[in-house]
């Protein structure tokens, strides 16, 4: 036995294909006659991803839009099933994906905190106990009692992150969450994440290498659904930044094969 901490996330040859149908009729045909013929094209969002995360590590996942970062996180969190390969997770995961996306526009901030807390696995009483602290962290003043439809984008993110900061996960998954808040709030979140790193495991997704360098000790660069480079954060981030300067922003990457 080695003295290294145990593995909490492991993926081996992980691949994910989405079925792309030309139209609804093709889908219907697939349902009816799928055993004999294939009526869809496969879009491989992830191809052969293998990596490991150990307890207490912070791993950054870098990549451009549409490279499969979010798909990878969704698989690790158990929201979608991989098509091929193995994923193994041991620990309570809290996803902070697309913060505030689940807010109900008609309900007040407070009601949304109750639902958000429940979705992240808190008991009602626990959320109520932490309500003041959450409002304090978000610091959006009296707006917490107003419907979320009146919020600015920044206020939504503040409230959403405040909820996430008050649950106690073993593994925290953050997906480009901080890009909307102002500098002062971003610093507050970064400080909180720094603090979290002392006790938990972090999976941090971004297309900005600066944030990853600041928060993570390992990095994984995903390009077109494959791991292009992984290892020490500084090296991966440098290679990623260099590639971004050279490579054109072509649309061919998004086409299904």
């Amino acid at each position: 036995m080695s003295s290294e901490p145990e593995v909490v996330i492991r993926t081996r040859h992980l691949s994910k294909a989405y079925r792309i149908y030309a139209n609804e009729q093709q889908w219907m045909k697939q349902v009816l006659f799928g055993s004999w013929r294939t009526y869809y094209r496969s879009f491989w969002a992830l191809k052969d991803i293998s990596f490991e995360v150990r307890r207490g590590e912070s791993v950054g996942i870098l990549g451009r839009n549409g490279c499969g970062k979010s798909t990878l996180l969704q698989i690790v969190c158990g929201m979608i099933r991989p098509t091929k390969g193995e994923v193994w997770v041991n620990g309570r995961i809290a996803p902070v994906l697309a913060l505030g996306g689940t807010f109900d526009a008609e309900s007040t901030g407070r009601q949304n905190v109750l639902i958000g807390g429940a979705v992240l696995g808190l008991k009602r009483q626990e959320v109520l106990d932490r309500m003041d602290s959450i409002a304090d962290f978000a610091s959006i003043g009296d707006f917490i009692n107003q419907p979320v439809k009146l919020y600015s984008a920044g206020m939504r993110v503040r409230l959403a992150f405040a909820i996430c900061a008050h649950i106690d996960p073993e593994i925290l998954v953050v997906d480009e969450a901080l890009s909307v808040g102002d500098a002062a709030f971003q610093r507050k979140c970064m400080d909180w994440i720094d603090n979290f790193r002392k006790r938990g495991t972090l999976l941090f997704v971004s297309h900005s290498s600066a944030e990853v360098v600041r928060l993570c000790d390992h990095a994984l660069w995903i390009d077109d659904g494959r791991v292009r480079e992984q290892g020490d954060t500084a090296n991966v981030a440098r290679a990623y930044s260099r590639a971004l300067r050279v490579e054109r922003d072509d649309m061919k990457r998004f086409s299904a094969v």
Partner: protein
Amino acid sequence: MPLLHIVDGKVVAKKKRTILARFAAFLCDPFVSTWRHRDLVDAILRRELAERFKGSVAGWVWAITAPLLSLIVYTVAFAGGPVSLPGGGKSGSNFDYALFIFGGLIAFNLFTEMAYRAPSLLHEYAHFIKQTIFPAEMLPIISTLRATFYATIGLALMLVAQFALTGTLHLTVLLLPLWFVPFVAFLIGLTWMLSAAGAFTRDTAYLMMTVAPLLMFATPVFFSTDTFSPTLKLIFYVNVLTGFIEVLRYLVVFGQLPNLWVCVWVVVCALVTFYFGFWFFGKQRDSIADVI
């Protein structure tokens, strides 16, 4: 024990079990799952209940006004209408027909509310399903419970009206919970099926919008099947709603015990729908996040 372990798209079974044990686990699964997510169910149910009359000044008054108004209208319009007791005797009250229709409509409206909403249910909660670790199989339970809550208001009004208009409340009313549980189970199973199918294609919603109003005439809401020939009666019973509505009327309006075979048929249908719906939803749920 890992929380998540998937190889080639399949969850790796925690331990090997016999077929019998797996079947027993399947039967317990809906209840175990609901209990495990009870805080989430509670939070979303509260929101759903509050949502219905959000933005209105009168709020909850509407929940009582709507069934009350329709009850008054039926009472005025159908007082002394044609209803005969199942035994062939004449009923003692002029208001039986109004209550007879009202009871039928409570059950039928509850059914149509779920039939209309179920196909778009998962789309409503797409953000939750795609962005959080969310037990989507709880949504049909939550939405059915919400609709049931409003139906209960109607049912309570019916009992009050029954007492106020005819002066008696039959003892068989105490058996109502035994009617309610299978009916809710039937609706939850139906919602599981319709919502899973609706996640894939919007046609499910259009189908229900077309079929449900027609179904009203294939269901004895305004008439009774008692005068029909035995063959026609059997055909009507294929529509499970017929059984549910008749049992409800026997218990509340007529104050008699319903036919045992009708009860058995209704309970069997409810169980089959419930578990088939749960199985169907479970089979589709992994592809739902991909398509929604």
